[in-house]
């Protein structure tokens, strides 16, 4: 099974040269650490920054410069600052090529739930609904099962959804899976040492297996 860092590392292999990318909070933020240095990509932060740089050193910390996770960040050469309406114009307008975000549940038709647990958690959706409704490519980073062993790749989401039919790819601690346009999780790659049978057992939505399923490479 993959660690959070390995999930991020595997997702980073999906990044293509010239992309503008929005990274969500948590594992997606870690993806930035693994993007190959020969690729020219620009990271967008929906609170109003294009061109997110590394975390600042202690003496560079600026309270007026944070990412959407409210962490202090730095800028890179060519960074741009803008307001929130402009930021979401970029997102809804389809100018952001790739969105990577976390999920509590994904359904076999690509619905995603990640903003609310009724009666338990009331934090809000932030920018997630705008992002999933708009990006042409959405990759989800998630744990395949909850801590109690409940599968999170389902026939239908049980939690309130964030967006419909929007997820294209999932990288979990067990596998890489694509969402079939006809519905179903297409098993593309296995985590090292994890069998197809194990993944089948841990996936309650429809799992599609097309021939040999290779182990992930990093």
């Amino acid at each position: 099974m993959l660690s959070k860092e390995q999930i991020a590392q595997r997702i980073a292999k999906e990044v293509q040269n010239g992309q503008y990318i929005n990274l969500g909070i948590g594992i997606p933020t870690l993806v930035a650490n693994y993007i190959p240095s020969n690729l020219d990509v620009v990271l967008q932060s929906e609170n109003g920054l294009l061109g997110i740089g590394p975390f600042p050193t202690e003496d560079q910390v600026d309270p007026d410069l944070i990412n959407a996770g409210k962490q202090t960040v730095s800028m890179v050469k060519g960074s741009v600052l803008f307001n929130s309406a402009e930021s979401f114009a970029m997102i809804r307008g389809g100018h952001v090529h790739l969105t990577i975000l976390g999920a509590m549940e994904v359904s076999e038709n690509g619905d995603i739930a990640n903003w609310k647990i009724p009666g338990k958690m009331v934090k809000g959706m932030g920018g997630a609904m705008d992002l999933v409704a708009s990006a042409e490519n959405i990759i989800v980073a998630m744990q395949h099962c909850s801590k109690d062993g409940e599968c999170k790749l389902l026939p239908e989401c049980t939690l309130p959804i964030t967006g419909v039919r929007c997820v294209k790819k999932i990288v979990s601690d067990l596998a890489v899976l694509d969402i079939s346009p006809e519905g179903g999780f297409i098993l593309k790659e296995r985590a090292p040492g994890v069998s197809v049978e194990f993944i089948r057992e841990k996936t309650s939505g429809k799992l599609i297996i097309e021939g040999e399923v290779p182990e992930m490479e990093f």
Partner: protein
Amino acid sequence: MINKTVRDAKEAVADISSNSFLMMGGFGLCGIPENSIAALLERDIDGLTIVSNNAGVDDFGIGLLLQKRMVKKMISSYVGENAEFERQLLSGELEVELIPQGTLAERVRAGGAGIPAFFTPAGVGTEVAEGKETREFDGKIYLMEKWLRADFSIVKAWKGDTAGNLIYKGTARNFNPMMAAAGKICIAEVEELVPVGELDPNQIHTPGIYVQRIFQGKDYEKRIEKRTVSKD
């Protein structure tokens, strides 16, 4: 040039009454009107409705207004990191309307720009769409969302002049420019207030036409929610 200067935060917020509809700029604690919030805390008012992307933390920002039970309703996109908020919400003392962040930004922008409604893909097929009109454009379903306008909008800028022209710094800009335009009365607090003519017209983010009151703030704490540094 019209002079919009008021003496201080106390004077700027003196006529905000109970049950007012307010907007406050900021993302997390970045770019929030610290001085105006402190001055509001001294006022004996309640029943406020506040549009703000977040609700502060327990002991800073809008969290202070919540602690004093001055807020009836929050209209926000993300309200985590605030235990008192969650307590008041679950006990029914506080109403909250959660809105996708881009929809929130655009509803405020629309309010200031005189656009009563618009269509967005965000929230289609979710709880957010319940009771709202949808329409298909070029084969995709969109949700109708309405403008937001406020009795008072309270914004924070880096520099401003006495005519109310504003310049923001870093990601402290966020919701402030749209909110400035969407308030019947916009109160702007700035770190540095300069005479008209000193700001470069090419660099102004918020034209003073939107701002009714401006004052020089003081003692900015600029608290950081998640100080994250690299090791080297």
